[in-house]
């Protein structure tokens, strides 16, 4: 999000936190202990909602000024040819082992792992066209930590009270097991 839009009309028009809270409240429904089915249901609902947050933010802002994103240290050094390197353009906010080094691919979980239907999100710049794209960092789950090609991108990454933009959380919600294996960087669309 551009630095010069931290306050004022943009924030009044759209507040990602407010939306996130509404989403989470909708998940809540009560205080009783939930079963796995309910969690899966919540996660499936969350899947299309969380990735839309920055899109909605961009729409609310009209034509977004993406120039600040293109100027981060990560964006200036990003490349498009090798997705096993931490400076691959989609990894601007990834944290963890790259599934491309673990027997999987950029949007593919390694054999035996299960993709999480929900994710944290990032907005990364493709250096080939200079445009911003929404990236869903979906964890692959159910196998022990791959521990290869560990990366820690931090562009626009936040803290756990803004969970949808935090990359330290184990995002294996709605999977058979929450054991973390590696992370993918799925291109959702233009941001």
């Amino acid at each position, binding site marked *: 999000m551009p630095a010069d839009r931290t306050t004022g009309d943009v924030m009044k028009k759209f507040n990602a936190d407010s939306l996130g809270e509404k989403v989470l409240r909708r998940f809540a429904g009560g205080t009783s202990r939930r079963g796995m089915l309910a969690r899966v249901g919540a996660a499936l609902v969350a899947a299309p909602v969380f990735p839309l947050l920055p899109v909605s933010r961009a729409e609310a802002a009209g034509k977004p000024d993406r120039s600040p994103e293109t100027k981060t240290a990560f964006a200036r050094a990003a490349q498009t040819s090798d997705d096993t390197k931490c400076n691959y353009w989609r990894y601007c906010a990834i944290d963890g082992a790259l599934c491309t080094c673990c027997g999987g691919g950029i949007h593919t979980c390694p054999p035996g792992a299960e993709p999480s239907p929900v994710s944290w999100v990032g907005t990364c710049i493709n250096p080939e066209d200079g445009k911003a794209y929404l990236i869903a960092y979906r964890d692959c789950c159910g196998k022990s930590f791959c521990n290869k090609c560990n990366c820690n991108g931090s562009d626009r990454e936040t*803290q756990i009270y803004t969970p949808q933009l935090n990359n330290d959380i184990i995002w294996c919600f709605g999977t058979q097991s929450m054991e973390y294996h590696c992370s993918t960087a799925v291109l959702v669309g233009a941001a």
Partner: protein
Amino acid sequence: MKSAAMPKLSAASAMGLALAATIGAICLPAAPALAGTASVEPEDSDVAPLPMPKPSWFYIQRGFVQAGTGVYDSATGKYLAQVETPVLGDLAIDPAGKHYYVAESVWTRRLHGKRQDFISIYDSTGLKLEGDLDIPGRMLVGGRLHNFIVSDDGKTGYVYNFNPVSSVNVIDLAKRKFVKTFELPGCADIVTYPGVGLAALCSDGSIASINLKGAKEEITRTEPFFNATNDPIFDNYAYDKSKAQMTMLTYTGLVYTAKLGAKPEVSTPFSIQEAAGIRKGDTKPLEVNWFPGGGQPLALHYASNHMFVLMHAGEFWSHKAGATEIWDLDVTAHKVVKRLSVSGEPNSIQVTQEAKPHLIVAGDDEVVQVIDPATGEVKSRIKDAGTGPIQIAE
């Protein structure tokens, strides 16, 4: 090949040598260091005791790959014991120092099966497992100091949960049973709030007050005072329980304090860079400045109100970067009084609460350095210690 130089032995000779080696292996550890004083008395195996927590001690988790929390004495650099924490586990220390509590999660069939979340309770003198109790869930994140806390009287534990509904589990530690869960939408990073219940940071840039005195929790929020998406406050802020005061730091280097009185009173922020006599930190791209960074980037010495901050030169959004300097900030005077060079690019820092405190820092290489903040001298350098977080008994 090593075996090529070895003479051939008969089976009987080999067995005899193996037996001698085995006996030697058993006997050797019993031999004292000084020649001529060797005891030949038969011995029994025993277990080392562990004293109650001391102000010079610190506790460091090994990290994301290896389990365990090492207990060290900063006065000597000596390793004392391991508290049994898993990867992504959370350690809470009984304020009275009698127990260690560990919030953890496992599956019945290692990586699959039924998930079990529970609190393990250890006696602090001996580290014997006294028991465990089930809880409905907990956030799997690791590295956070405010996800599992204990009330000042030591009777109640609070475990933050996110599944992905944000909530808090309340545990009666005296009776050793789970009490209830309440939802905490949009907030996390809890601390105790005397006379009220809990406080937390929220994604709208406010502090939540969570009143637990009644049958139903009442959650109110301050006016938003920081930007949680553009300039967030680090999760691992400092909290002085004796003053009920939060000391917080943002990515750009703004320092806030919040006194938890009748309601939270948030101070006017000041810039740590300006407190050091340099340009204020900014979110603008391409501006190189000194920024705070790391998973545990600050530590507060309560009595002196000096905050020690891991700082690095870089650009905004480098908030996870390791440090090249430690800044000693007098929070009361709004002045950085010392800048210490530090090696190893640490991203976790803690300070003991002694009159003459020790700084403890750790980096991704799992090397811990114990540093005298008065001189910057590295008093101990400990390999294979862990990456953090680093805790002290309070």
